[in-house]
């Protein structure tokens, strides 16, 4: 576990003279610079083939294409809402690809990139934001839990699930996703206490995208988030969340440690939400355009593309082919979303209980009779 930082040194959380939200970061794990240059880190190495690099690039591009299409569909009235992941593609794809088949993910409502890595059909996510269902995928089969909207609640589910894995002697770990805002929730703190106490095989993957809707990270914490872990008694590490290679390496190491019985790790993926909180949000009310420009220079896709091009691991034909695949994906998502049938009204009543109650069965019958009365008229 020596690879994982246990630093407790306090760092001024409020940037003094630099650009907002970009403090000096001596603790940041990075394997790929914003310019696309591969660098080494003393604690985290990653052997990655050209083929794997291309696969990661493809993931990033397709996930962003999906996200762009979903935002457009919301504007066209096809979705009620969309929570964009733009800027966080590397954090999500890196974490998702670090998972083994037996691991279990517990997402928030923004983890479309992780859903992608778990082979969740994008249309099953679209159906949620269209208002057709609460998420159409099978959380058991995909090992990707349903989205959780109440902030932080899923971290306890992940911890409990991990305790179950521990009891079963299963070779797997739970990966709990959360955001910077969630770290202020009592339930998240309880989850970390439980995880530490029982040495549960769970990894807390916090995407610090700098904002909880409008509230900046300074409103949530007076210390860098990864340093909180030491107070709970397990390692915390801050990784460049826009560096898919670093995220992959750090998350792999943490999941491996969890599976081996070393207990939890808290990962702070330092990133930035380039878009609005959701399509209902207006970030121009609370942050400066200059901040966005700073972070655009750290774009997760551009840096991997630069690396691939510079090293000759991919050529123009490859990039064009991925773009073309993105267009095809967008068409499939657009068409599939528009053609999604509305659910039957009786679905309101179905599945409330494993064993329905006489009361609910009666309400359902009355609902059916009421609607049938219009057809007869």
């Amino acid at each position: 576990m020596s690879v994982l930082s246990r630093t407790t040194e306090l760092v001024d959380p409020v940037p003094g003279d630099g650009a907002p939200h970009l403090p000096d970061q001596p603790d940041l794990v990075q394997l790929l610079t914003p310019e696309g240059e591969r660098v080494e880190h003393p604690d985290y190495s990653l052997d990655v083939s050209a083929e794997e690099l291309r696969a990661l690039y493809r993931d990033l591009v397709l996930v962003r294409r999906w996200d762009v299409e979903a935002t457009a569909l919301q504007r066209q009235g096809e979705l009620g809402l969309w929570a964009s992941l733009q800027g966080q593609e590397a954090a999500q794809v890196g974490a998702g690809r670090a998972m083994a088949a037996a691991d279990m993910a517990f997402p928030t409502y923004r983890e479309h990139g992780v859903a992608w890595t778990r082979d969740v059909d994008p249309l099953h996510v679209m159906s949620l934001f269209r208002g057709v269902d609460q998420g159409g995928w099978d959380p058991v089969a995909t090992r990707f839990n349903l989205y959780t909207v109440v902030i932080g609640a899923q971290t306890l589910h992940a911890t409990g699930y991990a305790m179950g894995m521990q009891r079963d002697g299963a070779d797997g770990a739970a990966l709990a996703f959360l955001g910077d805002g969630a770290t202020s929730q009592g339930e998240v703190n309880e989850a970390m206490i439980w995880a530490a106490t029982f040495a549960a095989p769970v990894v807390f993957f916090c995407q610090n995208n700098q904002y909880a809707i409008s509230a900046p990270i300074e409103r949530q914490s007076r210390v860098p988030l990864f340093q909180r872990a030491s107070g709970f008694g397990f390692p915390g590490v801050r990784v460049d969340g826009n560096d898919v290679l670093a995220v992959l390496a750090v998350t792999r190491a943490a999941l491996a440690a969890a599976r081996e019985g070393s207990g939890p790790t808290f990962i702070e993926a330092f990133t930035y939400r380039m878009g609005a909180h959701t399509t209902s949000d207006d970030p121009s009310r609370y942050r400066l355009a200059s901040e966005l420009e700073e972070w655009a220079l750290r774009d997760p896709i551009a840096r991997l593309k630069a690396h691939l091009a510079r090293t000759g691991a991919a050529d123009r034909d490859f990039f064009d082919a991925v773009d073309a695949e993105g267009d095809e994906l967008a068409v499939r998502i657009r068409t599939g979303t528009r053609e999604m049938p509305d659910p039957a009204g009786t679905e309101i009543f179905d599945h409330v209980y494993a064993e329905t109650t006489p009361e609910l069965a009666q309400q359902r019958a009355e609902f059916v009779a009421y609607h049938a009365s219009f057809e007869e008229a």
Partner: protein
Amino acid sequence: MTDTLTLGKALNLGLRRAMEDDAKVVLMGEDIGRLGGVFRITDGLQKDFGEQRVVDTPLGEAGILGTAVGLAMRGYRPVCEIQFDGFVFPAYNQIVTQVAKLHARSRGRLPMPIVIRIPFGGGIGAVEHHSESPEAYFAHTAGLKVVAVSSPADAYWGIQQAVAHPDPVVFLEPKRRYWEKGVVDTDATPGPLFGSRVVRGGDDVTVLAYGPMVKTVLQAAEVAAGEGRSLEVVDLRTLSPLDLDPVYDSVRRTGRCVVVHEAPVTLGLGAEIAARVTETCFHSLEAPVLRVGGYDTPYPPSKLEEDYLPDLDRVLDAVDRSLGF
């Protein structure tokens, strides 16, 4: 085997049998292991089943319920003890937004066979937050089932039935009756968990109660009998779903109905029951359905709880008012 047991001991034996029947049953809570629970309901279970099956948790009710959700997703059947009724609210978020909804949200893919045991009600001279009756909050929440036991036999069988049930069950235990004794036949075939029961036949007024108030109402019925009034007493037993068919049958004969609970009257269970009885038995009613319950105040300091809690006299007063219409 037939034995005379306290309600608390009956729960203990019921939990023991549930754990023997299913290795996936895990008890979780504060001080339930070594100490056996502050009311000793889990006494001796950790010693016999081990720390993995009787888990002394950290002190956090949301943590207990939230990790129970994850364990349920993994195929376990968590039985969570909330130490006192007033301490359930830190877990309220997990219960209402997660436990209650996951089966529906997942369209049945994520069953939540979780039992939430809560010692509830007053009358033990406790400090604040130790005497609450929070049942209406849970009965109002779709996705939960809520039961309240009143006797050792129901406690013994009810806890086993709740543990075996596939849906989340809020299991309310009348803490001031933990030490009451009753006969339990451990070889009997229990009635359904989600059913009400006529516990005393009568002709003049139907009186409904659950949990700790069943005994109070039965005592009132005894006194009323001495005054020539015949009360039919129904132990509701299940608060969500409600099983009111036996109540309707009774009210159609008596024409009068009184509902008794410790919880505040306004928007309590009695309000829902009064509405349903009125809707269903309107032409049989000789008097409006009357409610007897706690006042719309915070639960008072213990020196005042006798003024707050419905007692024999307040039940009989309501019976008089019903008969006076």
